[in-house]
């Protein structure tokens, strides 16, 4: 069979991009002012930290786990960034490295004791939140100048958030989907036993994936503070659900190590656009929340359309 663009397999991998494009088109139609450098930048710069958090979640999902704590973790990182990293950079850096190490340790714990990740991360979400509240009892702090400078950096022609998402997507794609080590890491989600039988250490893969998740969580929190310029203990709680939804929207699955970094980032951006479209539609406030659900469903229906197509051809 010739592989055309209508080949469902290819089409399927294009679905996240398609959903994103459809949504963007709808927004351009409703509010033409968004069709500009300024507009895109405004719409997407808050999606960038979500994209990082989504990538963090994706690493966890790759090894068949689920992270219910990423939102509170990013909040904690944001608090650390807006306080320690700003006032005592050395302490801040050590704390952030400690956060990554804590994530790696969680991975080891989950593997060694064969624990359900959901419960462990649920528990950890309280721990992160508690630390954040202790660190920053009421909202405040401020971003280190270099950080807000970096995030606010006005690239010519292409908004920073888009460029950064693109680079992020490509780096993670090459590292996880194209590299030799990436194959082992994904394989340990697909069939852990086989990976072990081939002589690899599952402990190492799990620790690596959790450490990566921690790293991208830290990046997410820092970029978030760079954008908002200050932090609070509840600032990113939403990211937990957003990141899971983003990975799934991007074509990832809960089990079996089937994920797509580029898809996940597109998923995160799509979720951000859902909110924008909503603002532009001028819906009465009591229906705004529901409309968000409806838009999500419409976007997701696209997936099922492609799935159907795939089935028919199978």
């Amino acid at each position, binding site marked *: 069979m010739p592989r055309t663009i209508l080949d469902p397999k290819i089409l399927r991998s294009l679905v996240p991009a398609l959903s994103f494009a459809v949504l963007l088109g709808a927004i351009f139609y409703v509010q033409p002012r968004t069709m500009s450098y300024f507009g895109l930048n405004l*719409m997407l710069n808050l999606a960038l930290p979500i994209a990082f958090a989504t990538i963090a979640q994706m690493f966890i999902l790759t090894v068949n786990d689920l992270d219910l704590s990423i939102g509170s973790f990013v909040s904690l990182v944001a608090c650390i960034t807006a306080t320690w990293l700003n006032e005592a950079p050395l302490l801040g850096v050590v704390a952030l490295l400690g956060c990554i190490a804590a994530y790696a340790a969680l991975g080891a714990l989950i593997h060694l004791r064969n624990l359900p990740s959901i419960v462990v991360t649920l528990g950890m979400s309280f721990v992160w939140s508690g630390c954040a509240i202790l660190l920053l009892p009421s909202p405040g702090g401020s971003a280190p100048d270099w950080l807000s400078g970096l995030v606010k950096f006005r690239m010519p022609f292409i908004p920073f958030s888009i460029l950064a998402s693109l680079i992020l997507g490509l780096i993670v794609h090459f590292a996880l989907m194209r590299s030799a080590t990436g194959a082992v890491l994904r394989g340990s989600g697909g069939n852990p036993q086989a990976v072990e039988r081939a002589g690899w250490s599952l402990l190492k893969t799990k620790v690596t994936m959790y450490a990566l998740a921690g790293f991208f969580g830290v990046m997410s929190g820092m970029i978030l503070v760079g954008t908002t310029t200050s932090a609070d203990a509840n600032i990113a709680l939403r990211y937990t659900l957003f990141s899971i939804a983003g990975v799934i929207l991007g074509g990832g699955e809960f089990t079996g190590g089937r994920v797509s970094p580029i898809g996940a980032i597109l998923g995160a951006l799509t979720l951000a656009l859902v909110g924008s479209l909503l603002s532009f539609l001028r819906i009465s*406030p009591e229906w705004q929340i529901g409309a968000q659900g409806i838009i999500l469903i419409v976007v997701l229906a696209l997936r099922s359309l492609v799935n159907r197509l795939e089935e028919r051809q199978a």
Partner: protein
Amino acid sequence: DADTSDKNVALSNNYAGNSWRQAMIKSWQEATAKAVEDGVVASADANTTAENSATEQAAQLQNMILQGYDAIVLNAASPTALNGAVKEACDAGITVVSFDATVTEECAWRIAVDFKKMGVDQIDYLAERYPDGGPLLEIRGLPGTSVDEQIHAGILEGIEKHPQFEIAREVQGDWTQTVAQKSVASVLPSLPDVVGVVTQGGDGYGAARAFEAAGREVPTIIMGNRSDELQWWKEQKDENGYETFSQSIAPGVSTLGFWVAQQILAGADVPKDLQVPTLRIDQDGLDQGLEMTPEGGVTNKEYTREEAQELISSAK
């Protein structure tokens, strides 16, 4: 005054999940519908985010900038985390007026309630009722938020003023009735007899039910202007002369935000910081307070253009 009939105003709200916010939105819709009809402004949309989160609201603000509003009236999820977005709005020439939960960004106007005073007043009241003082139970709000911290700071200040009081125990109520009820119930077995319960608004009825369920005498609970609280208070008052007071910021303050924004657009010289008093109901005013409170809602007061102008001129 300059003509504002071609101006577009918008409300940005971060949470719609409780009766206070619902009343706030409703007041906005009613007052602005009339203003639009009267040709005062061209439009006054209300926007609310799906979830209570600073990042979502910041995104909402940025979208509003793109929509080209002339003024944004803002009830903020965080006093600082929206500053970036607010600054961008100001830079785009948009008037930003924040109320209730205000923002610290300097380019925005603030219609603030003195939350700290709300805390101090509670202790002052209790000091009058119980000159000998005694232990208290404090119900906190959502941890990590500024309103929670400010009211708490006020309560601490009050206790400094009246050292005969002490906080026996502090529980977390999340500003949610059911959560407050559960937290209070969980602390009761180990709680000494307290003279009063200091609250942040909306938790009073839950606390009262928890005390009743445990078969303990209900101490003086400071109420938060919710109709179930006032109703319970009235029942108790009629039955055994129960005394307390109730205070809250009126949800209708959103309309004040609207009129202040309109005045700014009209060219009025408005100071950046305005104070709005809380709505306080005392023992004698209970019946009148109940009248101002819709069934199942919050005691409300909507503001007019004149009241806004008065507030502005008194602040100068």
